[in-house]
């Protein structure tokens, strides 16, 4: 027998020594920090999750008044206010995934000094890691409130986990200050543009500044109440001043173009045929097309779209006709929502009863909508609905785009100094996108009216992009809007071919209570801390 008979070398893993000795392997490690681990069931289909929830079967929008997820998958209990530390539904991943991501970044930050690479590139990577770490904190802060700040520490298995100091949650202000400081550093270290050794998909200066602007907007908002609107406006202004970004003409193409061309997207994630996400067309498509009617828009959102004359449907002069509710609406309604009668893939959508192919009278009726609507945004008509497995799932997920920055600016500036011209200009840029063409906001709005207009603008412009959930909370209006029943529409085709519309409750039991302004911290985490970690109010 050989002397080293028991000493074997694995052939499918490498050690940290190997990672740190080879700058290419080290960079490969850093690249994967854009993704995070899969923690809960039914996430990370195709590829690992990134930040937030993004393209999963039940999207984050289905935890709000934007949509409901037909197959539940842990979204209904959030709609119904039943989320609990032991029952987190589809919201159970942020805590664990964020802290794992932070540790992974910290390990790289603590060791990068020993990696051989050019100083310039090293600076970029340090900036990138700090940006990624701050993004993880954003996921923690906007879901749970004040986070436990771990700094640069890399925890090891042998650490003493009974030390109460480990479980002290920082205040909201301290948490945001920390993340913002990290983003300031990142913005200094990251390149302004993608290209060359810093290809598209890696964070840039603009991404860091835009994330900072978002966090400061949150900080100034009523729920957070720990920052100033002026600082938030200034941070958004800094992004605008980069003069790198602009509103792209085509609203619907923005969410489909997998190359992320144009200059509206500030930070997003690409997918490819071999690294796809959930196949959106089949998972959200109508049953009459063999889709599964996943995230189906609610009437609550449909009602938020103005008429194309710029007036709300509640305005008696808007021309809204309840018998023809889908005529002459804001074009973003047509880009976002599939409604009865909409032309889709060569025919009109039949969400009506009796007999509509996309209703419960259609085929595979367990896959029909409960709301009367289907999701249109993100749908790529070039993808097949049936058998999409080798072509679909390649839309980019946009984390931050310029329209959000403009609306962040408008909101902060309006709150800080009232509806000045820059506020109008920012909102109107968004409204007057070439393919949207909504009339500009009427002049002479009061600060309160402007606030309402911006909120509505965010609701429709950013629908399904994971803003609504956090917006209604930070504005502290969730106890109203999320306590409004989740409405759908029963559409009946009459003998003469006309349609009747009857409002119905699409998901029974929608409810929101004060504790739901924040998510509960997972129960196992509280138990692991021996109850030293402060649970959010109302979930104890």
């Amino acid at each position: 027998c050989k002397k080293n008979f028991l000493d074997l070398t694995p052939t499918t893993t490498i050690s940290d020594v190997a990672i740190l000795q080879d700058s290419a392997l080290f960079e490969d490690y850093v690249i994967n920090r854009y993704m995070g681990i899969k923690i809960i069931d039914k996430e990370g289909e195709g590829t690992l999750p990134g930040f937030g929830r993004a393209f999963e079967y039940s999207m984050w929008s289905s935890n709000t008044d934007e949509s409901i997820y037909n197959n539940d998958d842990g979204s209904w209990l959030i709609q119904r206010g039943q989320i609990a530390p032991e029952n987190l539904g589809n919201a159970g991943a942020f805590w664990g995934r964020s802290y794992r991501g932070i540790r992974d970044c910290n390990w790289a930050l603590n060791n990068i000094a020993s990696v051989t690479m050019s100083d310039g590139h090293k600076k970029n990577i340090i900036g990138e890691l700090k940006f990624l770490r701050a993004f993880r904190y954003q996921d923690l802060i906007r879901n749970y409130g004040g986070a436990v700040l771990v700094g640069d520490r890399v925890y090891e298995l042998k650490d003493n986990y009974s030390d109460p100091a480990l479980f002290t949650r920082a205040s909201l202000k301290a948490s945001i200050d920390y993340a913002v400081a990290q983003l300031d550093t990142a913005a200094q270290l990251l390149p302004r543009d993608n290209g060359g050794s810093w290809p598209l998909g890696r964070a840039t200066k603009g991404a860091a500044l835009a994330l900072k602007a978002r966090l400061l907007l949150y900080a100034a908002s009523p729920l957070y109440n720990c920052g100033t609107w002026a600082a938030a406006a200034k941070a958004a202004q800094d992004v605008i001043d980069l003069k790198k970004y602009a509103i792209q003409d085509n609203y619907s193409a923005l969410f489909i173009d997998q190359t992320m061309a144009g200059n509206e997207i500030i930070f997003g994630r690409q997918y490819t045929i071999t690294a796809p996400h959930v196949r959106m067309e089949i998972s959200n498509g109508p049953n009459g097309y063999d889709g599964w009617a996943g995230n189906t828009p609610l009437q609550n959102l449909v009602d938020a779209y103005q008429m194309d004359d710029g007036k709300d449907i509640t305005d008696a002069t808007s021309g809204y006709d309840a018998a023809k509710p889908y005529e002459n609406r804001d074009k973003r309604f047509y880009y976002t929502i599939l409604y009865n009668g909409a032309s889709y893939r060569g025919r009109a959508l039949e969400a009506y009863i009796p007999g509509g192919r996309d209703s419960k009278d259609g085929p595979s009726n367990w896959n029909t909508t409960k709301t009367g609507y289907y999701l249109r945004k993100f749908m790529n008509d070039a993808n097949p609905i049936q058998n999409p497995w080798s072509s679909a799932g390649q839309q980019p997920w946009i984390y931050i785009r310029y329209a959000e920055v403009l609306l962040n600016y408008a909101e902060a500036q309006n709150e800080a100094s009232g509806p000045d011209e820059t506020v109008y200009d920012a909102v109107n840029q968004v409204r007057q996108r070439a393919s949207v063409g909504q009339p500009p906001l009427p002049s002479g709005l009061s600060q309160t009216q402007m606030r309402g207009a911006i909120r509505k603008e965010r609701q429709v412009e950013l629908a399904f992009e994971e803003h609504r959930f956090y917006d209604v909370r930070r504005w502290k209006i969730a106890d109203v809007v999320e306590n409004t029943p989740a409405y759908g529409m029963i559409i009946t085709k009459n003998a003469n071919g006309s349609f009747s519309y009857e409002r119905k409750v699409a998901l029974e039991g929608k409810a929101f209570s004060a504790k739901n302004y924040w998510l509960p911290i997972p129960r196992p985490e509280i138990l692991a801390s021996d109850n030293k970690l402060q649970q959010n109010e109302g979930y104890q």
Partner: protein
Amino acid sequence: QSPVKGTVTSSRGERLAGVTVSVVGKTTAVMTDGTGHYAIPAAKGDRLQFTSIGFAAREVAVLGDENIDVVLDNELVAAMNEVVVIGYGTQKKATLTGSVSSVKGDELKKSPQPDVSNSFAGRVSGVIANNRSGEPGYDGSSILIRGLATTGNNDVLVVVDGVPGQIGGLSRLNPNDIEDISVLKDASAAVYGSRAANGVILVTTKKGKSGKPQISYNFNQAFTSPTRLPKLADAFTYATIQNEIAYYNSQDKGMNQIYSEEQLQKFKDGSDPLNYPNTNWPDLVLKKMALQSKHDISVSGGGENVKYFLSAGYLNQDGLYKNGVTRYKQYSFRSNVDANISKRLKVGLLLSGRQEDRMFPQSGAGDIFRFLYRAYPTVAAYYPNGLPTTGIENGNPAIMVTDIPGTNYNPTLVFNGVLKGAYEIPGVKGLALEGMFSVDKSSGFDKNFATPYNLYQYNAATGTYTPNVLGGIDKQATLYQSQTNQYQYVSNIRLNFDRRFDKHSINAFVGYEQSNYHSDNFSAYRKHFPTYTTPELSQGGTADADKSSDGGSYTYTRKSYLGRVAYNYSEKYMAEVQARVDGSSTFGPGHQYGFFPAVSAAWRISNEDWFHKGAVINDLKLRASYGILGNDNVGLFQYFNNYSLNSQYVINGVIVPGYDLTLLANPDITWEKAKKLDIGLNAVFLKHFNLEFIYFQQKRTDILAQRNASVPQLSGINSAIIPAENIGKVDNNGFEFTLGYNKRLDQDAGIYFSGNLTYAKSKIVDIDEAPGTPEWQKQTGRPLNTYLLYNSIGMMRTTDDFSTYPHPTTTPRQGDLVYQDYTKDGKIDANDMVRTKYGNIPQVTYGFTAGGDYKNIDLTILFAGQARVSQYVLPESGTIGNFYSSWADNRWSPSNPGGSYPRVDERASNSVNGGAYPSTFWLNDASFIRLKNVELGYTIVNPLLTRIKLSNVRVYASGFNLFTITKVKDYDPEGSSGSGQFYPQQRIINLGLNLRF
């Protein structure tokens, strides 16, 4: 001097071959042939001596009769002289100091279940065998020795013909090739050191015996059917349930939101089978009975210097599905040859091989049964015109089971070769050198070809049938193919010393063993096949995105130093010491070696002079053993930080390489240790009764477990990267009790019975738990594998109950379960969950076997049972699936306010009465007693047979899982699926024929 002839039979009536018949005082000796016949020249007044291993020798005087039939007694003395296989040797049962159960291959063969692991239940005390599924090819039992003793791996080490962990294992061995099986339950397994903590099963295959060739042919034809299938709701009931669910969602819209009364009536009366079918899916998809056949042939014999046992077997098991492709075929051979090269040198070559051919449809059994139990009875499998429907969610179980969606062919080849040698060293009597070298090879192949197919949607308005293309990708076929090759080399060398000095006997050895295991896997995938007729990788699409491949390998090595000294004085006082030093590549430098010693002793009280034998107690032995055993069954390379390639992130439109941390280092990782104490009493009394009582105690320490609960996630260390650490402690105590009776009533008749009972209860002493865990939820102090559930204490029947009982949601309803407010804080939350008393591993298992023979008829009956065991099953019911009738017929509803099951809900898995608040309502007492095995045989004795060279013909009928008594209503109580969706266990009725030439 004319030849004396006769037949030798055992006291159980079996014809005995290979019995030495000699004339006392002379050199004349012959052996009985395969039918027990002998013929020896002897004269009146001679005395014939009959000897055979395992039987009391007998002398009979020749009185002039030409025919002397002899019955050899294997009841008492034979039992004591019986030799039992132990680790690296054999031992007389009488001098055994450890707890070793042994069972003969002939006994195991009586079970018509082709998987050997299914033959243990009820037969062997201390062995807990649970048959979890009946799918051909995967229908074995999970085996535990004396229950659960660790939170880590509980796998038993299987040693076949001296090869520890032989590739191919126990399950698929041909039962006809097995001579006997020993189960080492206590510290007597310490000689297997680091792998012995969960017990050891030693399998010995048949060897040839000198004498004329004996040819045996066996044919078995079996008829299999599920032990039980759930009864499901019919279309009318299910349609009514759907109405109820819709009503619960919007009560203002009434009770007929989905189906009108007229429509419900149509489901009931079947007047419109196209639009209102009533489908009993299990009836439609499953056969009443499937076939299983088995052919076995063996030849055994040899001369003085060469002995051989050769066998071949063929098994064909059909699946339960109508038009299904599931089947299992097995072809096996064995050639065991022993040769004396010289007076001192013996060698043996044992070669065996088999092909396990598994064929499955595209969907696994779990999926098929999931769809089968969920499929709506309101949907037909086929339209009246014959086209298949979309079933449930585009899964039509009637199609899923066929080859229409493609097949999954999975043949595995196993080869095992063992070369053994023994050399008696000249000069020192009793000293011998023995060695072994074994080669195991296996190659598993998988070819999974998925082809597109159509399911049809009927549009009632237009009367048209629209095809849905399913299967494959982009309406084209796909192929996944993989190959896993394994090999293992084990070699050992031992120096044995076995000698008796007057009343002192010593049996000892020292040895060295090493082994090397390696596994390689490779797989490839293609899609976009232009035609289905070319299911080969070379014939798929050619674009880069059409192909993918994968592969990997791993190795582990072990080296060990081992030895044993056994001493006995007059078979009265026995003592034994054994030890093994084991080295394993699983652990890091400095932690690779472990030491595993054991001591044992026995006192055979009945051999004391003062003990009066024969009165009541014929034999009495007290024994005890204590030792330290190990368990190293954990993932490899946990002693350093592991980083693995995981490329998924897209930059500039292409996937770039990415690395992730996949495991944190635990440089100190080492063996799990089991300290086992065993005290036993063996007795024979009233000549025909035997009794064994064993008390056992096991303390498992340094259990290899992950600190998943106490390491907070905010450390960034989540469970996926936590390595195994030596942290847990579990005690496992219990007893085994066996009582048997065996008596020959006369030459023609005998009876026997035996009952055994094992009680094994684990207690967690130390387990990684979150420090904040409430006392009543802690696992520490409780048995392993318990459930954490809400206590279901009733049902909300009136709206008044809403204020009487706390409830978990703000909107309770009538028909909701009432959960116990364990903390009495006025609300139901996670703190109210309580640990259950039992898990799904039984604490009590028992068996009862009885049998007898009368003339040519023999009968064996085996009952097996379990108790103190629970299984949680929540069916996947709601709008997403059908209901068990037990729920559907007894559900609470506005029209059935007295229902015993909760109101129906959209999805049981998320319902407040189901998965959202898992409760004891869905926990079943999985105790059962079942008639596990019966065999009735008839041996044809007819002189005509010998004319056609047949010496013996036996026909028999046998059965497996014939009936079960249990409180579980809907599924087989041996199942372990939490959703009840599994391929059901099989009831087997078998007819067999045995011919001996």
